[in-house]
């Protein structure tokens, strides 16, 4: 079975939209997915992350960090242990944005540490839940894309093992029934 690579996850996350503040005028971009622009400072525009990174690398825009990517928000989530307002691909998005635009994101170092902490906590919660795995399903509430991908090999393999054991158990039952 194929597992999605980290680079591919980043590739997918690059399709998510974020807000940028252009620093130069640019005409409308007639892209295949959608049209973006015209870019007219100081008006802000919503563009996919890959485009934002391209513009940022040429100093043609500043990146406006998303709502959740703020120190207060993240530390609030940490204290309340409630991560419902994090986007599905929060790890990839924060990695991409912090990678190209540290200067645009206030307190980027603290944010990085907070996100790592959140990631560790969620991982621990997940590990604690593994015991709930049964032969039908396992319930995991709000996991991110990257986290799902990380646990997928482990969970699917153990799930398959449980299922096989369960099946052979049932089969044995059926066999002994027919003998009598």
């Amino acid at each position: 079975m194929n597992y999605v690579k980290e680079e591919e996850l980043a590739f997918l996350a690059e399709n998510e939209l974020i807000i940028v503040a252009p620093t130069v005028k640019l005409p409308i971009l007639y892209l295949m997915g959608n049209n973006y622009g015209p870019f007219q400072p100081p008006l802000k525009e919503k563009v996919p992350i890959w485009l934002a990174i391209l513009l940022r690398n040429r100093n043609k825009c500043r990146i406006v960090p998303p709502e959740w990517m703020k120190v207060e928000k993240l530390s609030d989530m940490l204290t309340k242990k409630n991560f419902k307002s994090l986007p599905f691909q929060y790890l990839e998005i924060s990695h991409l944005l912090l990678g190209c635009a540290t200067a645009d994101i206030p307190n980027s170092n603290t944010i990085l540490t907070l996100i790592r902490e959140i990631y560790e906590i969620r991982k621990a919660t997940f590990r604690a839940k593994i015991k709930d795995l049964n032969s039908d399903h396992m319930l995991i509430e709000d996991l991110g894309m990257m986290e799902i991908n990380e646990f997928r090999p482990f969970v699917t393999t153990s799930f398959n093992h449980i299922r096989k054991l369960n099946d052979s158990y049932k089969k044995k039952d059926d066999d002994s029934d027919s003998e009598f």
Partner: protein
Amino acid sequence: MFGEELENTHLSSICNTADVDGSNGFNTQDFLNDDSEGASEQSDIDLFTKAWINEKNSPEILNFKKELLESLSLKLTTQKHFIEEENLEIFLSSIYLQEIERLKFLIRSYLKMRLEKIEKFSLDFLVNQENRLKLSSKELSYCEKYQRLKQEYFNKTCLEKLPEMLRSIEEKNEMGLSMIVEPDLNDSVLFKVDKSIEIYRLEDRLVTIKS
């Protein structure tokens, strides 16, 4: 987009393929299906990205997305013409080119992924009519050629030297054990539940989710 969905209990669960897959077997791993406004607004590229994710995570080959691929390749050609005709400045054209490269990457990766599956289950496609229909005509001819090469190789290296009764490579024994490599349709999958549910159907029984 995410906020709305997370209001409901937002679950990701693992489950047997059998119940969710239904007969046509797709959309079980729609992780990116976060568009609650409805599927009609999604562009071809979004739909193809979804098809890519599904193909990547499913044990078996899924239906070939012929129409989608045709419309995307048409889009690619028109877009290339557009760039040539507009005489854009270098920076702008680099944006357009990057989008083209991204789409081409996705298409290449999709086709390669399918070829991998075809090589793995080549005999199954030739024996099993139902699975054969999931391939495009080019994929089918690739599959036939690949299987022919494999068969010749097996014959030359080993099978020729065996007694005739042991030469077949597509036999089934009495226990139902087959020599043909088939995808494991009972493999587990992960899927995201959009609306909260309490009960779902698994094979022939109902299962309650306890949270």
